[in-house]
C-alpha cells in the first residue's frame, strides 16, 4: 500500500485524561478513509494533531514519506493538509471571494487587490463545489449549509493533497448531503485523499473505502467498509449492540392539546402558520435548513419578534413577547446553537442547570448552595451527565453531555412543552440514545414535545407526527402511519421547485 499519511504509536495526554494512546494508522494515497467514534473517543484530538493545533506527546507521524511535525495550522497547510473543521472559520463581513482567497489574494501593482481575478477565481472554486451564488455575497448572508460548502471550496483553493472533513454533514439536509457526496467522489477521482469524520453511520458506506474506529482514545480496528453493516460499526464504536436506536414507545397515546399556534406571522413576507402539539406527543418538524423551522420556533418562544398570531397553552391564549413569558407559561426551548445560546460555557454544570429558576434554590435573594448542589447532582445523576463534578465548567464536557445539561436546566425549571431544535446535532450515538430515552420518559409524563431535526430517519423513528416546512410555509402534516422518506422530502422541496 502506498501510504500518504502514517501514524506510529501516536499518543496525546491532557492533565487528567489520556486523549489518544498508541494510535497506529496508515491512510492510503487516494482513498476516502472514514474515522468513527463517539464523542470523546479521540477523533478531534487526532484531527488537531494533523492540523498542527496540538503536538503529539509520543509516537510519530509521516506525511508523504517525510516526518510530519507541524507546529502551527499554517505549517499543516504548507504541507498540503487541509482541514475543514466542524466549527466554521469564515469571516462573516467579508465576501465569499475574499474568504476563499484570503491566503493568496490576487494583487495588482502596489498591493491593490485585483477584484476581477479574485471573483473569477472564486467563481471557479464555487463551481467546483456546486454552489451557484455570486462570490461577492457577504458570508454573513449565507445559510450554514452554504458556509460549509464555502469552507470546502476554500480547502480546495490550495492544491491540497489530503483533505480532512470533520463532520461536514452535521448541519446539512439530505439533498445537500447528496451534493456534498458527489463533490467528495469527484475529488477522489482527481486523486485527493480524504479523511472523513462522521457521526452518521448510514452515510459513510456511500463514500468510504476504509474505516477506522476509535474508542476511549484507542484504535479499535481499521477495516474495509465493504462487507460491514451499521450494527458492526456500532458494536465497534460502543463495544455493545444497540437494538433500536429510537425506541418508539407505542404505549404512549397523545392526549389533549398542550400547545397550539394559530396564524403565526413572523414578518410581512412570510405566510401565516398554524400547528399544535398534544400532551404526550412527539411532533416532528422537518424541512430544509433555512426553511423557516427554527425561525418559527423562535418567534413562538418570543426569542424573535412576531407580527401576529395566537398561542394557546391548554386551550388558554397566552401573550408571549419575550422568552421570559414563554418560560413562565411552561415552555422550554433547546436551541440549535447549543454553545452560543444554550449554555454558560465557562460556568459550572450546577450553575447552568439552576439558571432557569433560581427562586427554587434561594430564599430572600440568597442562594442556598447546598440546595443547589443537591438539585444539580440529582439531575446530573438522572440524566447520566458525564462530568468530573458538578463544579466542572460545561465548556469541558462533550457535545452529548452538554446537551444533557441543557435538558437538565429545563427539567429543573419544570416544563409542560419542550421545543427541541436539532437536539442530537454533534451528539454521539451513545448519548443520543440516552436523549431519546429521556424524551420518551417526558412524553410518558404527558409533556408536549416538538422536535426540529434535519435527520429525517431520526424524526421518522421518534415522532407521532411530522409537520413539514417549505419556504416558511407548513406544507404537510404527516401521521406516523404515512411516514415515507421520499414523500416528506418532496414536501420539503415543494415550494422551492414551484415555477
Amino acid at each position, binding site marked *: 500500500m502506498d501510504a500518504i499519511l502514517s501514524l506510529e504509536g501516536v499518543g496525546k*495526554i*491532557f*492533565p*487528567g*485524561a*489520556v486523549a489518544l494512546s498508541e494510535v497506529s494508522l496508515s491512510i492510503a494515497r487516494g482513498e476516502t478513509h472514514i474515522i468513527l467514534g463517539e464523542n470523546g473517543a479521540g477523533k478531534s484530538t487526532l484531527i488537531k494533531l494533523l492540523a498542527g*493545533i*496540538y*503536538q503529539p506527546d509520543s509516537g510519530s507521524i509521516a506525511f508523504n514519506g517525510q516526518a510530519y511535525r507541524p507546529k502551527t495550522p499554517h505549517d499543516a497547510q504548507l504541507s498540503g493538509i487541509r482541514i475543514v473543521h466542524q466549527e466554521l472559520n469564515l469571516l462573516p463581513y467579508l465576501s465569499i471571494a475574499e474568504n476563499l482567497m484570503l491566503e493568496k489574494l490576487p494583487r495588482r501593482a502596489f498591493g491593490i487587490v485585483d477584484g476581477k481575478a479574485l471573483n473569477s477565481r472564486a467563481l471557479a472554486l464555487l463551481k467546483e463545489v456546486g454552489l451557484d451564488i455570486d462570490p461577492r455575497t457577504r458570508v454573513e448572508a449565507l445559510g450554514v449549509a452554504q458556509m460549509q460548502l464555502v469552507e470546502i471550496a476554500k480547502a480546495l483553493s490550495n492544491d491540497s493533497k489530503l483533505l480532512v472533513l470533520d463532520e461536514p454533514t452535521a448541519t446539512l439536509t439530505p439533498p445537500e448531503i447528496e451534493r456534498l457526496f458527489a463533490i467528495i467522489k469527484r475529488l477522489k477521482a482527481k486523486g485527493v485523499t480524504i479523511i472523513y469524520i462522521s457521526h452518521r453511520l448510514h452515510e459513510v458506506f456511500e463514500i468510504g473505502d476504509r474505516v477506522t474506529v476509535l474508542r476511549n482514545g484507542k484504535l479499535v480496528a481499521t477495516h474495509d467498509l465493504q462487507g460491514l453493516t451499521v450494527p458492526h460499526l456500532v458494536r465497534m464504536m460502543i463495544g455493545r449492540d444497540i437494538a433500536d436506536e429510537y425506541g418508539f414507545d407505542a404505549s404512549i397515546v397523545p392526549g389533549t392539546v398542550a400547545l397550539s399556534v394559530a396564524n403565526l406571522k413572523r414578518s410581512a413576507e412570510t405566510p401565516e402558520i398554524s400547528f399544535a402539539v398534544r400532551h404526550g406527543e412527539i411532533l416532528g418538524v422537518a424541512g430544509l435548513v433555512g426553511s423557516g423551522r427554527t425561525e418559527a420556533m423562535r418567534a413562538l*418562544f418570543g*426569542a424573535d419578534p412576531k407580527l401576529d398570531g395566537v398561542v394557546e397553552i391548554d386551550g388558554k391564549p397566552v401573550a408571549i413577547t*419575550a*422568552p*421570559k413569558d*414563554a*418560560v*413562565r407559561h411552561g415552555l422550554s*426551548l433547546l*436551541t440549535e446553537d447549543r454553545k*452560543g*445560546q*444554550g*449554555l*454558560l*460555557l*465557562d*460556568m459550572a454544570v450546577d*450553575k447552568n442547570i439552576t*439558571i*432557569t*429558576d*433560581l*427562586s427554587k434554590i*434561594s430564599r430572600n*435573594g*440568597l*442562594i442556598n448552595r447546598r440546595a443547589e448542589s443537591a438539585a444539580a447532582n440529582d439531575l446530573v445523576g438522572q440524566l447520566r451527565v458525564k462530568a*468530573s*463534578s458538578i463544579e*466542572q465548567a460545561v*465548556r*469541558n464536557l462533550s457535545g452529548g453531555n452538554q446537551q444533557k445539561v441543557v435538558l437538565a*436546566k429545563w427539567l429543573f*425549571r419544570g416544563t409542560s412543552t419542550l421545543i427541541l431544535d436539532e437536539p442530537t446535532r454533534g451528539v454521539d450515538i451513545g448519548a443520543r440514545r440516552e436523549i431519546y430515552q429521556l424524551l420518551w420518559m417526558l412524553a410518558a409524563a404527558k409533556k408536549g414535545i416538538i422536535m426540529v431535526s434535519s435527520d429525517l430517519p431520526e424524526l421518522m423513528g421518534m415522532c407521532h407526527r411530522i409537520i413539514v416546512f417549505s419556504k416558511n410555509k407548513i406544507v404537510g402534516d404527516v401521521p406516523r402511519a404515512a411516514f415515507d422518506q421520499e414523500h416528506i422530502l418532496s414536501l420539503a422541496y415543494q415550494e422551492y421547485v414551484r415555477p
Partner: protein
Amino acid sequence: MSETSQATISAPVSPGRAKFLRFLVRDAGVLLALVLITVFFSATAPYFATSGNALKIFVQIAINTVLAAGMTFVILSGGIDLSVGSVLALCTVVGATVMIDESLSPGVAILLALLACMATGAVCGFLNGWISTRWKIPSFIVTLGMLNMAAGAARVVSDNSTITGLPQSFVDFGNLIIGGFLPSIFLIAVLVIAAGWFVLRFTVFGRMIFAVGTNDEAVRLSGHNPDFYKVAAFTISGLTAGIAAMVYLLRLNIGSPIAGVGYELNAIAAVIIGGTSLSGGKGSIIGTLVGACILQVLSTGLQLLGVGDNFKPIVIGLVIVLAVILDAYRERLLRVIR
C-alpha cells in the same frame, strides 16, 4: 497551546490537586503578587516598611477601591464604565454644595450630602445602562459620552470653581484613624468591597451578573431579562462613584469640578489586575481590592526608590499590560486543569 503550561502541570492531576491548582492559578496569584511586591519594596525602598507608610497607602487606595468595586460589577456583566471619574467630580461638587448650606445643621447637611452624592451617581449610572441597553450601543461609547456630560455638569453646578468650607466634624471624621491603624476612609472602602463580595457571592442577583457576562443570549433564552442586570450593574457603578465622591470629600475636603480626571482608568486597572476578565463573566471583587493595593504599593514603592514621576507611569503601565497577558495565560492554564 503553550508548551510551558503543559510542562509545569504534570498529568494526570488528581481532583483534589486540580482544585488546589485552580485556586492557586485563579485566586491566589494576585495575592501572591502583592505579597512579593510588598516584600521587595520593604527590602529595597527606604521608609517603605514603616507603619506611617502603610497608613498612607491605606488612605490613598480608598477612593480607587470604592470606584473599582462598582467597576467590577460592570466588567463582570460584560460592560465597561469610562464615566466614573467625572461622575465622581460631579458628585463632589453636588455633595459639597449641599454640605456648605448654612441653613442646615452639620449633621443633617452631611447626611443629605451623602444621599445627594449617591443619588446623583446612581442616576448617571442608570442612564449609562439604560441608554446602552435600550439602543444596543456599546457601553464604551455611552460612558465616554457620560464622561464628558458629567464633567460639564460638574462645572455648571460649581460655577467652575472649587467648593471649600466643609463642616469641621466632617473633616475630622475624614482624618480619623480608628485604633491608630485603620483610617476611616479605608474602612469605608473595605465595607464597600465586603458588601460587593457578599452580593456577588451569595445572592441571586450576583449570580445573574456573572451569567449575563458569560452569555447574555443564553440568559435571555432561559427566561430572564439580561438588560435589567446590565442596567443594575451600571447603576451600582454610579452609586459607588457617588460614595467615592464622599470619600474624596473626606480626604481632600474640597468639591472640585476637575476632580477624578483619569480615575476611571485606575479603577479599570485595579479590576483587571485583580483577575477579572475584560470579556465578562469571570473574576472576583476581592481580587479588585488586591489589584488596587498592587497599584498603590507599586506607585508608593517606586517613589520611595527614587524613580521619577516621569518613569513611574511607564512601570505601572507595563504592570497593567502584564496583568492582562497573565489573564490570557491563566485562562489557558485553567482550561488544562479540568
